[in-house]
Structure formats: C-alpha cells, structure tokens
C-alpha cells in the first residue's frame, strides 16, 4: 500500500466518505459505486472496510472508501477510531484520502454540519453531499445553497442517494477539488484553533452552525410528524412492548413456517439429484463419494439457505427502517438486569440467525467489558444452524400430540429449546458481569433516527452478501468436511466376513469408539461422538454426518431425513436424544464463531475461554438432563 504512494503517475485518487450514523452514507456509497465494491476488514480490528471503484465524468478513477459513521473525530468506539485514524493518517496500511466527501442529512442540517467543520479543519479538500434533499424539501426546507457553500467554505451538492440523484454532480465537484487542491475552496476558511478543549470545540462548532444556518436557511423544514406518530405507538410502554413481542413472533413464525416451503423444495431437489447420480454412475467408490459424501453432506446444509435469508431479510428491514435502536431503547432496562447494554439486544437478536454477524454487530457497543460479555454469550442464542438438528430430533423423539388444548408438543419443545438458550445466555452474562468482566455500567446515549422506508436496493445487496458468504462456506468448509467425513466413515473397509456394521471398522468408528468413554456419562454412543467431530466445523453438518454414519451402515440407503429420524428413534433412547438437544443448545460447536471471536477480541484468550466454558456448561447440562430423564423412565 505504502509503496504505491511513491508512483509518480498515480491515476487512482482516493476519496473517503464520512458522515454521521443514519445520514444515508452507505446508500450514497452504493449509488456512487453501483455495487462495484469489496468488503473486508481493517487489520487488527473487525471494523468493516468497504472500498468501491468509480470513474468520474472527466475520466478520473476514484477509489471510494466508506468510513464508519461518527458524530465527531474525537473517537470512542472502535468504528469511530478507524475513521479518525484514517483521516489523521495514523493507519499506515491506508493511504490518506485525496478528497473527503462529507455526507449530511438535509433533514437534520444542524447535526451533520458539525462534523464538516471538524473535517474542514483537517486542511483536506472537502465536498459536502447534502443528502435526502427530496425529503427536506417535502418538509418545507428552503435553503440558499450559495450562502451555505460560501459560509462553510466547501462546495455543496444536493443528493438523493436512494434514487442516485446528484451522483454525477458530486463526482464532478470532487474532480474540481482535485484539480485545484489548495485552491479556492480549501483556503477560504481559516483552519480552526486546536488549542481549545474538546468541549469548548463542540460549543464553538454548534455556535458556528447556528450562525451559518441563520444566514443560509430561508425557511426551516418542519420535521416529519410521521416519526412522532409512529413513535407514539412504537415507544409506548405497553403497546411498544407488545409490538416488539409481535415482531419477534412474526420473525419466528416466518423462519419456522414460511421458510419450510422453499426448504422442502430444495430438499427434494437434493434428493432427486442424489438419485439421478446414483442411477447414472456405476456403483463404486466414486459414486459413493459423490452421492453419500458431496450431495448428501452439502445438500443437508444447503436446504437452510431460505431460512437464513428470510431471517436476514427481517433483520435488514428492522435495521434499515430505524427500528433497531428503538428495540434497544425498549429492552435496555431488562438487559440491564443481567448487566448487558440495550445495544446488546441487536447483536443477540442477530445471533438467532447466526452468531457470526451477531458478534460482528457488537462493534456498536462502546464499552470493552460490555462488548466482551455480549460476544461470549452470543453463541448461546439458538442460531439457525442448530435448527435442523432440533427439528430432526424433535420429529424423531417427541410425539406430535396436542397438549394444553391446542398447542403441539413438538412446537412447545422447540420453543423450550430457544427459551433455554436465551435463559442460559442471560445467566452467563450476569455471572460474567459480576465476576470476570465486572465494571461500571456504560452509557446508553444514542440517537433514535427518523423512520425511513427500507431501501430495497440496500436490502437486496445485504441478502446477496449473505448468499455469497453462505455459498463460500458450503463450497469450502462444508464440502471439505463432508468429503473428509465420508472418507473417514468409509475407509478402511471391513475384511470379508467380519460381523457388525462396516463403519465400526472405519477411522471414524475408531475415533468414535475412543471417545465413547468420555461421552457415555451423558448418554451418547460412539456414533454420536463421530458425528460431533465434523459438527464442530459447522453445526448443521452433524445431520449430514449422522446420515453418513447411519446410511453407510445401512447398505447404501440414502440419508433422507425421515429415514434417518426413524433410524435414530430405533437406536437411541429418549434420554439420549434430550441430552443431545441440551448439548446442542449449550456447546460451542462452531469453528467459525471461535475464529470471528478471535478476530474481534484480537487474542486467542477469549475464544479459548468461550470454548472452555461452553463445553463445560454443555457437558454438565447434558449429564443432568440424561440422568434426570433416565430416572424418569426415559432411558
């Protein structure tokens, strides 16, 4: 990166986008790049780094960097720190931007301009993109652009990012700035005095904004009453809480019921594919590899894509519309009981989809201890990868009879498992906050943004990103594990005339047998032990591996879920199934979670701790469950 700087004929200019949270900065980034972007991470921290490419009307190439949203260059969260480090040139891997595009929400002029005044003092050329001007005009704002630009000392370009309006004008303005670096605009306003205290600086900035707006604003906008009206319901102590429960109910209904249709479809496609291949290929090791290893293994995971996407769809809509911080507001007191921040609600909710985005979402939590606690308990929330295991075991072991009138026992058990996960997470959080991560309660202070219609474009992009990640995972880790497991379960073959199932002689069988004494006290047999090993790479793989372990044993029978369920029901006691369910609620069986925790915490200590405490918890929980169930006669 640094070497590039020395090149004399540099054709790519670096442009950084900076703005408050909720100013539409990401929408503007998408509008500018048209999705031509790469998402990565800053080294050492897990702050998302988004870079895109765009050509200006005058033919210049721009590298566009989307910096994390901030209210001030006085950084406090890891995200904000990145923004100021890049702008002050303290991150060596990142070149200093040539031009800054400051994004401000036109409906909240008073807010966004403070940051511009700070940016202006950096001495870099700045262009102000005044975003959401359509909304501001609708609200009656009348603004003298010339005066605003003159008083701020930067060119002002009105934009409507969601409709890609003003994008070309913005790029042209950036070009002008590059051609006249050190020229007219950036020199006009004297650089601010750095000798004053931060508090004094804030006061002066607000005073300066008041002065500028008094000159430039001909008619102020009437803030949208819609947000107020909606909030009267959404933030109402009673109705707001009920609405939150309703929304959560809807989300769960969606992932458990609506997602079943596309999932069944995918499942039958996978089954059909396996049959076709089995028909057309000669029997032998290669056919076995493709049908029992690749198709059965990857297919068993692929069927969860609809469920994961549906969950992310809800989370993206709730985030985009401005509801998420309100949920944090409503939940802060309850979360506070166990020592968590209201903002922990969002990461924990995301963890119902997958702990990885959940853990990454903890970046918005400022306090280190708070953030660590949230990270450590996030994997206890029931992620969607556990769902296939739950539904398999519940369908196989829990009778689907009606209880308490109209409730189905199977549904009730499923709900119970979710509840148990949440309960465990809260208990562990409370214990951690009172022992290892003891400390003062960090502040809640946050803006509740104006409601917006979620932008279909950004939701679509978010979902696409999910699909890509999932496909990469299925194509790499899950594929590799499926093949490895198939090999371990298939070889070495038993010698002619040896009694018992073939898998007992394979490597997998040997590993399982070696582990058996360890898992026997919690009611597991050696086959479960075998399946748990690949399950560590990805939880949902366990179904595929159970299918492999049991299907290989059953003379080439395909690991279709119903057949597998029936086999398990014959082979295991109810106590064993319950013990395994509890194990699945509590155990940290996900290498990706540990990897992301390492990245987030920048040490192996915390992922190590996570693995250790969750394994102990799971072992204890399964032990108690198994023996309790046996005592009740379910052995």
């Amino acid at each position, binding site marked *: 990166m640094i070497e590039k700087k020395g090149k004399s004929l540099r054709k790519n200019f670096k442009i950084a986008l900076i703005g408050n949270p909720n100013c539409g900065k990401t929408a503007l980034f998408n509008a500018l790049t048209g999705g031509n972007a790469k998402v990565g991470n800053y080294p050492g921290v897990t702050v998302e780094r988004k870079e895109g490419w765009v050509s200006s009307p005058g033919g210049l190439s721009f590298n566009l960097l989307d910096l994390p949203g901030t*209210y*001030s260059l*006085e950084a*406090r969260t890891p995200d904000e720190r990145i923004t100021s480090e890049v702008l002050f040139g303290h991150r060596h891997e990142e070149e200093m931007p040539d031009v800054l595009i400051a994004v401000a929400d036109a409906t*909240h002029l*008073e*807010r966004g301009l*403070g940051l511009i005044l700070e940016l202006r003092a950096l001495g870099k050329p700045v262009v102000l993109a005044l975003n959401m001007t359509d909304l501001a005009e609708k609200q009656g704002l009348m603004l003298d652009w010339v005066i605003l630009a003159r008083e701020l000392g930067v060119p002002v370009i009105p934009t409507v990012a969601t409709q890609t309006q003003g994008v070309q004008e913005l790029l042209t303005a950036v070009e002008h700035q590059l051609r006249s670096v050190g020229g007219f605009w950036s020199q006009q306003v004297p650089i601010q005095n750095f000798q004053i205290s*931060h*508090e004094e600086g*804030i*006061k002066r900035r*607000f005073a300066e904004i008041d002065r500028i707006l008094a000159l430039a604003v001909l008619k102020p906008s009437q*803030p949208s009453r819609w*947000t*107020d009206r909606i*909030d009267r319901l959404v*933030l*109402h*102590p*009673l109705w*707001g*809480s009920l609405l939150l429960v309703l929304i959560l109910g809807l989300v769960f209904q969606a992932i458990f019921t609506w997602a079943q249709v596309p999932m069944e479809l995918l499942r039958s496609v996978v089954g059909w594919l396996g049959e076709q291949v089995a028909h057309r290929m000669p029997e032998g090791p290669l056919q076995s590899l493709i049908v029992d290893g690749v198709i059965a293994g990857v297919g068993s995971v692929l069927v969860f894509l609809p469920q994961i996407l549906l969950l992310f769809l809800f989370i993206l809509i709730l985030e985009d519309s401005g509801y998420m*911080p309100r949920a*944090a*507001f*409503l939940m*802060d*007191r*309850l979360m506070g009981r166990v020592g968590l921040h*209201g903002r922990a609600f969002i990461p924990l909710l995301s963890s119902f989809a997958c702990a990885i985005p959940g853990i990454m979402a903890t970046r918005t939590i400022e306090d280190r201890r708070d953030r660590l606690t949230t990270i450590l308990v996030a994997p206890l929330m029931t992620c969607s990868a556990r769902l296939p295991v739950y539904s398999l075991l519940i369908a196989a072991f829990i009778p689907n009879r009606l209880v308490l009138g109209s409730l189905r026992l199977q549904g009730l058990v499923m709900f119970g498992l979710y509840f148990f996960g949440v309960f465990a997470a809260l208990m562990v959080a409370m214990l951690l906050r009172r022992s290892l991560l003891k400390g003062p*309660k960090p*502040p*809640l*202070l*946050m*803006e*509740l*943004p104006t409601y917006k219609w979620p932008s279909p474009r950004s939701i679509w992009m978010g979902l696409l990103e999910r699909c890509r990640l999932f496909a990469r995972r299925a194509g790499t880790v899950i594929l590799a594990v499926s093949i490895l497991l198939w090999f371990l379960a298939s070889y070495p073959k038993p010698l002619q005339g040896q009694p018992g199932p073939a898998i007992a002689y394979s490597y997998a069988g040997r590993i399982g047998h070696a582990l058996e004494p360890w898992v026997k006290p919690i009611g597991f047999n050696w086959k479960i032990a075998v399946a748990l090993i690949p399950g560590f790479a990805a939880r949902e793989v366990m179904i595929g591996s159970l299918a492999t372990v049991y299907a290989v044993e059953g003379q080439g029978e395909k690991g279709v879920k119903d057949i597998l369920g029936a086999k398990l029901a014959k082979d295991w006691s109810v106590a064993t199934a319950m013990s395994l369910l509890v194990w699945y609620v509590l155990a940290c069986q996900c290498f990706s979670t540990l990897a992301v925790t390492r990245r987030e915490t920048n040490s192996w200590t915390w992922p190590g701790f996570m693995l250790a405490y969750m394994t102990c918890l799971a072992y204890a929980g399964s032990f108690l469950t198994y023996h309790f169930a046996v005592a009740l006669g379910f052995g």
Partner: protein
Amino acid sequence: MSPEVKRKTHKLGELRKNSLAMIVKVGRAGDDVSQVARLMEMGLLEGSSVEVVHEAPFGADPIAIRVRGILVALRRSEANAVEVLIHD
C-alpha cells in the same frame, strides 16, 4: 424577575414525560469528561431546550428526549449530568 433571583434547577433525569426544559449546565464535578463531551455532541448544550417525549417500559427508564431537532435516548442516570430549568 430580576436576574439575581435564582430559580430552582432540576436534573434532566428527574423529569417526567412531556416536561419541557432549558439546559443550564452540562456535566457535574467528577463526571467522566468523555461522557460529558458525548452528551454535548448530541446537542445537549447550555441554552438548548429539551423535551422528554418517551419513557421506556419497566420503570420509565431510559427516556427519549427531543433536543435540537433529533430524538436522543439515554438513561435517567446519564441524564442526571444535565441541569435544566423547567419551562412553565
């Protein structure tokens, strides 16, 4: 009322829903400096007027206040760092 007559001020965290007030002081002795700066960045400055517009369920805490055109959520304990004069 002459300027010498001092009116009683309140802590922002003591205000109930729908109260309207003007900020007279941000930060008390011993308050965390960065926390005070954060409040000020949100627009809680001397002279800004604030309105308590929402109270959360479970003990009416945290609260949401309107200040300088935006809605800000904070706990009552945090709001106590702000001294206000209630409008009549």
